[in-house]
């Protein structure tokens, strides 16, 4: 039966080549755009180098202080003090990475300027995040405690200063008017990474005053659990810990900070959040409306084309009805035909997006970002194909099935 439908569908597609072209063009481009967006989001949001343990990690990267008296609200990152004094007391997480926001520093060698983005981190940072070292090794607890002027640099930085990575280790880079001894070189990170920097150095070297007891500052923490099951426990422990933190500044009376999954912390950074509301609802409904509007046009287009095509086939429908085919069978057939068309378009879309991704990767539009279509994305595409095919197929099929035998036969 299905084989028959398939044959009919191919025959119909061949008959009116121009219409087939228009349909396939619309479907394949729509799906290609969906694939590209999904690939990009998947790349940014799912675990990848060097943050490979995302499924058993929580992120502390946002702090909101409210003053109900003045109706004012401050958003930012937590301070080093807050993380060091309170977050590190949590029992459930196995390891806690602390790192600062990246700060731009300047370096002048041979009268050439280079901007180095620096992050100040603790030693656990190198355990939580799975950096791959091309040369040397990270700094440990002792070097951190002694405030040794050492740095781990990215391959890109290494290339800018030295001939090869191995030669870089042990050499010095002067940036921010400080001489750092290089002890390790790591594979470069894409710009979208949450720990992106050109150089990572021990936090004890920062020129900021780490004893400052303000709650807001420019630091983040990643909590790594030994297993996924501990995530909820850690969240609970975190909330309890927060409720006991005394407010330092009399001006504020409410504090909101959470241990978030990566996606949640990503949404929270868009400043849709307010208080305990993470902003997820607003984000999802907004994204949903955009996707719906985006899909609406190609769908309507396809529905219009499909209706035209059906009328074209009225004689066929008339004959089938006259020989006893039920409306249901006809609807079924047409929807399947449309799904076949959509899947053909889907295959073209995958090919198209594959080409675009290859071009984007090789042209290095986004440095160090290597996109690839993976299983998740293909699943999303498959889903989109089915939704698209059903949306654009059901109404025309219903219209077709209601055609009267007589009119259908008489039409041509």
């Amino acid at each position: 039966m299905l084989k028959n439908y398939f044959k009919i569908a191919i025959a119909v597609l061949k008959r009116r080549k121009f219409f087939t072209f228009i349909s396939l063009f619309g479907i394949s481009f729509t799906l290609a755009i969906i694939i590209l967006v999904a690939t990009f989001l998947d790349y940014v949001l799912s675990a990848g180098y060097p943050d490979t343990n995302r499924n058993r990690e929580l992120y502390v990267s946002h702090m909101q202080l409210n003053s109900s008296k003045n109706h004012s609200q401050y958003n930012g990152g937590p301070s080093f003090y807050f993380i060091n004094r309170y977050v590190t007391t949590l029992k459930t997480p196995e390891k806690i990475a602390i790192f600062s926001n990246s700060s731009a520093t300047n370096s002048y060698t041979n009268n050439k300027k280079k901007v180095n983005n620096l992050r100040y981190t603790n030693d656990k940072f190198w355990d939580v995040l799975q950096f791959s070292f091309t040369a040397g090794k990270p700094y440990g607890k002792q070097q951190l405690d002694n405030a040794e002027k050492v740095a781990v640099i990215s391959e890109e930085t290494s290339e800018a200063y030295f001939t090869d990575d191995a030669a870089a280790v042990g050499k010095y880079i002067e940036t921010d008017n400080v001489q750092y001894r290089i002890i390790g070189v790591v594979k470069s990170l894409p710009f979208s990474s949450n720990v992106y920097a050109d150089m990572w150095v021990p936090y004890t070297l920062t020129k900021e005053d780490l004893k400052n007891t303000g709650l807001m500052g420019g630091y983040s923490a990643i909590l790594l659990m030994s297993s996924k099951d501990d995530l909820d426990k850690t969240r609970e422990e975190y909330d309890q810990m927060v409720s006991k933190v005394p407010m330092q500044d009399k001006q504020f009376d409410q504090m909101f900070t959470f241990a978030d999954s990566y996606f949640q912390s990503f949404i929270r950074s868009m400043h849709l959040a307010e208080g305990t509301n993470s902003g997820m609802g607003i984000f999802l409904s907004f994204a949903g409306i955009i996707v719906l509007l985006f899909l609406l046009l190609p769908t309507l287009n396809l529905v219009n084309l499909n209706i035209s095509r059906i009328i074209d086939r009225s004689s066929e429908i008339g004959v089938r009805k006259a020989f006893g085919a039920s409306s249901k069978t006809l609807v079924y057939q047409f929807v399947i035909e449309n799904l076949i068309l959509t899947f053909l378009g889907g295959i073209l879309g995958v090919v198209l997006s594959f080409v675009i991704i290859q071009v984007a990767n090789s042209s290095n539009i986004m440095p160090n970002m290597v996109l690839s279509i993976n299983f998740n994305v293909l699943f999303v595409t498959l889903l989109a194909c089915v939704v698209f095919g059903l949306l654009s197929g059901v109404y025309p099929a219903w219209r077709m099935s209601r055609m009267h035998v007589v009119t259908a036969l008489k039409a041509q």
Partner: protein
Amino acid sequence: MIKHLFKLIWNKKKQNFLLMTEMLVSFIVMFAIFTLLVYYYQNYNRPIGLDYDNVWNLGYGSPQGMSDADSIANFRESIKQTIISMPQVEGVSFSDANIPYGDANIGTMIAYNKVNWPSEMYTADDNYQKVLNITLNEGRWFSKIDDASREKPIVINETFKERVFGRESAVGKIMSDAAFGKGTMKVIGVMNDMKDKGDYAGPQNGYFRRMDTSNTGGGGIILIKVKPTADAAFESRLYKTLSNLMRNTSIDIKHMDKERTKRNTQLLGPIIVLLIIAGFLIINVALGLFGVLWYNINKRKNEIGLRRAVGASGAGISKQLMGEALVLSTISLLVGAFFAVQFPLLNVFNIASGTYIIAIILDILFIYFLVLVCSLYPGRQAAAIYPAEALHED
């Protein structure tokens, strides 16, 4: 004629309904795109209002270990003297983090006659105007005279002045800090708007307060106007000198022209992606419309043949079909325009109504153009139908 066309369409309202919906959705999508484009184009055409060439911004953190106001003021003064004594420096000005093309925004509320106005807040010293070459419409910039004044002097921008004071002169008016309900501020000047958030940013309320160099809170940014001959060697020397002077804080030097380019690309990137997607949607819709119209003509061969037989000319047929398509689009455009007009009426997103109206007009013209182009070829084809052939088929 038009009445007749309406009748023809009304008779096939069911078939035409989806086609009209498609046009309506295209209209709405294109309305959003055109609004964006018109908005950015209008902003792009506004004067920049500041001179970013050869201005470097030097960021520094809070000076540690200094708590009393006098020593901080002295510290800042010595930095200023050091910089200005360098041969390639033309001017120096202190500001806070909210500088043109910078990463920070500082928004606040400021009140006049008990009405609160949201406004961008900038901090600047007496030299700021010269360093960035800002022009004033009214009044004057900060100067030594203000040391003695009782009220805090502020300079507001033209947009803010027009919104709050209209045509009246603003100089001498007293405003107050809305968040705390205290502190009086006296307007001493009105400056021309500066597009400090990038070339495509819209007009925004803004006011400058005078920098208090003894202010202990946090770091800030020093704007340095250099001679065009200043090169990397000079920058390196400047950096070294200042790093030695400010041992307890990190500093970094940025070039304002590069920051401006960065800002603009950050904004243009998403717009270009949006335009590519919109372009694809339009091609898609155009091909679809073309296909459907073309198909409809094939279906109406009998009717057209009959009309030809009773004396309609080829051009007449072609006109009729194009007319039908245009009437169809007119109905969708009327519905679409009804929704679109709500935007300027309800003042959504704080964009000037003129922008929306231009966008609506462009959008209408665009959809008509699209429909006309798509019905041109099908119309011609219909005109070429021979009555004998068409009537013979049945």
